[in-house]
C-alpha cells in the first residue's frame, strides 16, 4: 500500500472519528425528541474555543479540556431547558428553527465572549509526527481515535447497562409507552442534550490541535455530522459511527485523489447518492410500516 494512500486513510479516519462523535450527538437528540439539532456543531466549537481560551489563560490542558466539555454540557442542558422544553408541542419544523436560532445565538455569543480569530490548542502529547511506513501520523490522531473508541465503548455500556441509558432508548422506541412505564421524558431529553453537547465538545477539543478552532467552525462540522448521521441511518448509534468514518474516508480520499478544492463537496455528493439509492441509510432502522 502506497504511503500516500495510508496517509489519506489515516487522515480520513481521524476526521471521520470527529464526524462520528458529532453524528452520535445528532442521533441521541433525534432519538429522544425527533428534533434535528442544528446547534450541534456549535457544541464542537464551544469545546475547542473554551479549551483554547482556558489554556491561554494558563490552565493545564487536561483541566482546560475537562472544563470545556463540562461548560458545553451546561450549554446543552440550558438549551434543552430554555428552548426545547417550552416548545414541546410545536411542529418539528418550528423546533428545527429554534435550534437554528440557538446556533446563531451561540455563534454570536462566541464572537463576543472570545473573538473571531483562529485559535490553536496544544497537541496532547507533542507535535512530533510518527512514521508509519512512509506515512506520517500525528500523535494527536491517535488521541482522536483512541478517545473515540473509548467514548463509544462507554456509550455502549451506558445505553445497555445503566438504567438512565435504557430509559433513553425506551423513549426513542416508544415515547408513550416509556412514559406509561414511569420514565420521565423531560429528564431523558435533558440527559440527551447534555450528553450530545459533551460529545460535541469532546470532538472539538480533540480536533482543535490539528485543524484549529474559531467561532464559526461549528457550521460545516455540524452539517457534516448531520450528513454522517443520515448516511448511517438517522437515529442509529452504530450507523452514526459507520457514517462518520465513511464520510471522513470519502472526504480524505476524494480530496487527495480527485480534487482538494472540492473537499467539502464529496461528503454531500455521497450523501445524495446514498439517500437516493439507500433511503434508510447504511445501518438504517427498519421503521415499522406505517399503519393506515
Amino acid at each position: 500500500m502506497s504511503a500516500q494512500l495510508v496517509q489519506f486513510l489515516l487522515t480520513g479516519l481521524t476526521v471521520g472519528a470527529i464526524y462520528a462523535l458529532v453524528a452520535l450527538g445528532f442521533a441521541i437528540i433525534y432519538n429522544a425528541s425527533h428534533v434535528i439539532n442544528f446547534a450541534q456543531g456549535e457544541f464542537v466549537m464551544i469545546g475547542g474555543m473554551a479549551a483554547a481560551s482556558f489554556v491561554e489563560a494558563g490552565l493545564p490542558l487536561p483541566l482546560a479540556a475537562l472544563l470545556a466539555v463540562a461548560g458545553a454540557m451546561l450549554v446543552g442542558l440550558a438549551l434543552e431547558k430554555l428552548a426545547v422544553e417550552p416548545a414541546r408541542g410545536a411542529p418539528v419544523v418550528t423546533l428545527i428553527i429554534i435550534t437554528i436560532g440557538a446556533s446563531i445565538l451561540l455563534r454570536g455569543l462566541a464572537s463576543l465572549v472570545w473573538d473571531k480569530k483562529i485559535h490553536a490548542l496544544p497537541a496532547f502529547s507533542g507535535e512530533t509526527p510518527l512514521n508509519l511506513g512512509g506515512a506520517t501520523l500525528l500523535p494527536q490522531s491517535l488521541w482522536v481515535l483512541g478517545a473515540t473508541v473509548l467514548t463509544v465503548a462507554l456509550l455502549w455500556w451506558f445505553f445497555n447497562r445503566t438504567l438512565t441509558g435504557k430509559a433513553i432508548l425506551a423513549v426513542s422506541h416508544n415515547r408513550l409507552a416509556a412514559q406509561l412505564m414511569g420514565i420521565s421524558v423531560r429528564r431523558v431529553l435533558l440527559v440527551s442534550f447534555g450528553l450530545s453537547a459533551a460529545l460535541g465538545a469532546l470532538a472539538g477539543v480533540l480536533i482543535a490541535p490539528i485543524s484549529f478552532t474559531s467561532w464559526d467552525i461549528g457550521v460545516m462540522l455540524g452539517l457534516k455530522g448531520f450528513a454522517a448521521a443520515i448516511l448511517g441511518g438517522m437515529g442509529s448509534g452504530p450507523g452514526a459511527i459507520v457514517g462518520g468514518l465513511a464520510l471522513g474516508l470519502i472526504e480524505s480520499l476524494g480530496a487527495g485523489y480527485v480534487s482538494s478544492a472540492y473537499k467539502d463537496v464529496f461528503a454531500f455528493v455521497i450523501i445524495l447518492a446514498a439517500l437516493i439509492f439507500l433511503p434508510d441509510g447504511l445501518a438504517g432502522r427498519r421503521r415499522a410500516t406505517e399503519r393506515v
Partner: protein
Amino acid sequence: MASPAAAAPPSASSAPRRSLLALAAMVALLPLALPNNYTYEVAILVGLNAIVCVGLNLLIGYAGQISLGHAGFFGLGAYGTAFLAARYGWPTPASLAAAVAAVALLAWAVGRPILRLKGHALAMATLGMGIIVAVVIATEDRYTGGPDGMSVPPLGIAGHVLAGERAWYWVVGVLLVATVWLAQNLIDSPRGRAWRALHGSEFAASAIGIDPARHKLAAFVLSAALAAFAGALTAHYAGFITPAKASFLHSIELVTMVVFGGMASSLGAVVGAAVLTTLPQLLTVFKEYEMVLLGAVLMLTMIFMPQGLVPTLGKTLAAARGKSR
C-alpha cells in the same frame, strides 16, 4: 360535542383577497414613509426575499415538503443571468428568462429522485444539493469569478435600462403583488387543494387519485423557478453577485423567514421576509450583538408563537374580536 362554529383554516376566498389588497396598498403607500435611498434598498431586498418566500411557502407550508437548499436555486438564477449577459452579451431580459427556465429544468430533473424522500432525509438531500451548488459556484472561478463574485449588467432593453432605487422599487413591488396573487389563486384552486391534501395525508390523497410524485415535483419546480427569478432580479439590481447568495446560511434564512412568518399563509411568507430582512439591518446598529439578538429573537418568537407570526396574530385578533362581542 365540539361546536360546528369553530373557525375554518384561512383559505375561504375572502381573507386572501383582503390580504392581497392590503399588500397592494402597502406597496403603493410605503414610499411615503421611506426617507432615503438606503431605506428603498432595504424595501427592495424585502420584496425580492418575499418573492422567494412565497414560492418556498407553497412548497413547505402547502405541499408539506422541505427544502434546505433553496438558496442554490436563487444563486443559480443570479449567476445564470449574470453569465449569459456578461460573458455572452445576451440582452438581459433574455438572459433572465433563460436562467429561470434552466433552473426550472434542473429542479425538475433533480426533484424527481429527491422528492421520493421524506422528512429529514429530504431535508438532507436538499441541503446537500444547495451546498454542492454553492461550492461549485465559489470554486469555478474562471466562470463565476470565484469567492469575489462577478459583476452583472443592469436589466434593460434597447438602450433603456432599469436603474435607480425608485424604479426598482416599483418593479419589485408590482412583481411581489403579482406573485402573491398567483400563489393565492393556486391555493384556492383544485390543484391547491390537492397540494394541501398531500400535506394532510399522502395516503388519503393518493386514495382520491392525487399523484404525490407529480404534485410534489410541480410545487418544487415552481418554488425553484420563483427563487431563480428573484435571484436573477437581485443580480441585476445589485449589479454584482457573490457565492454567499447561494450559501447554506442563505437557505436557512429563507426557510426561517417562511416558518417565522407562518406557513400555509402567503401573507405570512411576506411578513417573515419583511421582518427577517429588516431586523438584521436594524441590528447592525448593535454591531457585535447583532447575531446574539437575531438568534434570541428567532428562538423567542418560535417558542411563543410556534405556528409563526401571522397565524398566531390572526388567532389573537380573532379571539379578541370574539371576546369584545
